[in-house]
């Protein structure tokens, strides 16, 4: 069983552990993009903010899972509120309007979080051991927490996929995204569904934020999601913003490539490897690798 602790498998495990988070963030970007054609630059900051709302409850004596639940609830609320107040006036406006508003919201949330909770990182109690499994004296780079992280991300991804694929709600969400006018003519309450799409996306992001901030002593800080957002966004663009499956696969791919480059490429390269992946992928297929739409609408 030494192959599990080999350098190759070590990189695979670490790559997957990071990659599922990129995938989760990418997925939540795709949900919003598909339904409202808005690229949510504030996605990471919204997740961070909701995570703060929930996780600071631990200082009131609540345990990890209760705080997690509150954070997710806060994520739902924040997502809904954002759609109603900020995003709704942006439909049918030029693209730059939504980019700027969401960028402004990103700045507002990060500064507000720093003002309320300070920039000092807040360590979160982790519910699972972070210590890597040992096998016959050699270390396998997977820990109970890493497994929790991978499983939690996969569960959310599967749940989101199942909602879209198999439920009536999902059918209506897809219809509202593909043909909003037709959906309304069939009695679908499109506005409510758009709000719900943002709530769902926001809550999925919160799961990523909570896992990231409790995955070590780095802790929760206002800017914690910045880097993850950039990589999640790159994953979404590489996978094709229309494709949830593409987002997840691209997220995993970027996690793995980054990990392997870190060990086998000169230092410094790995920090911008995902950008190279993005450029190459967009050169091959400008609409994303997994997108089914034949060409971008102009």
């Amino acid at each position, binding site marked *: 069983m030494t192959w599990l602790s080999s350098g190759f498998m070590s990189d695979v495990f670490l790559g997957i552990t990071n990659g599922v988070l990129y995938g989760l963030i990418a997925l939540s970007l795709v949900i919003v993009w598909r339904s409202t054609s808005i690229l949510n630059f504030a996605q990471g900051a919204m997740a961070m903010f909701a995570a703060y709302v929930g996780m600071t409850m631990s200082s009131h004596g609540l345990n990890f899972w209760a705080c997690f639940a509150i954070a997710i609830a806060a994520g739902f609320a924040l997502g809904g509120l954002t759609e109603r107040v900020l995003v709704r006036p942006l439909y049918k406006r030029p693209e730059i309007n939504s980019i700027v508003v969401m960028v402004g919201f990103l700045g507002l949330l990060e500064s507000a979080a720093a003002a309320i909770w300070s920039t000092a990182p807040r360590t979160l109690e982790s519910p699972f051991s972070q210590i890597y499994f040992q096998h016959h004296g050699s270390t396998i780079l997977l820990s109970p927490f890493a497994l929790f992280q991978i499983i939690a991300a996969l569960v959310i991804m599967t749940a989101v996929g199942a909602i879209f694929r198999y439920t009536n709600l999902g059918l209506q969400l897809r219809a509202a995204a593909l043909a909003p006018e037709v959906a309304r003519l069939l009695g679908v*309450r499109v506005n409510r569904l758009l709000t719900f799409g943002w709530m769902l996306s926001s809550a999925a992001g919160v799961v990523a934020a909570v896992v990231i901030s409790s995955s070590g002593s780095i802790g929760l800080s206002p800017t914690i999601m910045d880097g993850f957002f950039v990589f999640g966004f790159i994953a979404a663009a590489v996978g094709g913003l229309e494709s949830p499956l593409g987002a997840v696969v691209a997220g995993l791919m970027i996690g793995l490539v980054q990990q392997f480059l870190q060990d086998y490429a000169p230092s410094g390269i790995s920090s911008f490897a995902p950008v190279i992946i993005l450029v190459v992928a967009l050169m091959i297929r400008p609409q994303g690798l997994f997108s089914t739409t034949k060409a971008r609408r102009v």
Partner: protein
Amino acid sequence: MISVSQLSVSFGAIHALTGVSFDAANGKITAILGANGAGKTTLLRTITGLEEAASGDITLDGESLLKKRTEDIARAGVGHVPEGRGVIAEFTVLENLRLGSLAAKVNFQEGIAEQFELFPVLGERRHQHAATLSGGERQMLAMARALIAKPTVLLLDEPSLGLAPLVTAEMMATISELCAKQNLTVLLVEQNAKSALKVAHDAVVLHLGKVVASASAQEVAGDERLRQYYLGLAEQ
């Protein structure tokens, strides 16, 4: 009864509809006729709230529709098969039908059984994506999707567009049959006045956003002036 009174709609400086008034009787087919750009599609879209009226009123059984949202109008029993049919190409036939049934809260299994009886070809292709259907099949799907919600009013926007004459005739026959069987109020927008007038009870002729005639289908069909100038029909 759908009752339109003094309805005006404009897009910026362009007046799409000006002072349009007519009644569409329950359980009857009212054909809305006129040339391209006469305002037929705008009329239907205003009824279901997709366009905003500048003045006037539209009522369904006495209740105004103007302040209502599209989805609420649909839930009140107004089915609208829009221009170009609006089937969702990425969905299968079944998914399209299921989408149509959700808001009305009808029994889906019974609903599809009914529709497949009415349009057997849809039953055969139930798992195919709508993108793979022919023009006629798509029109059937669009109608079935509207009918599955058991509407009391059905708005049809150019159902014959792009269909072969034989298919058009079949389609018109189906509409006529439905109207009779289910006591459906139908507003039928058509450029193809000839086939529409065959099945319609009443007809409204629009020209440049104004009503030039509103009478029984027979009367309209018999008016030589209307036929020549507004409906583009040659002498009988």
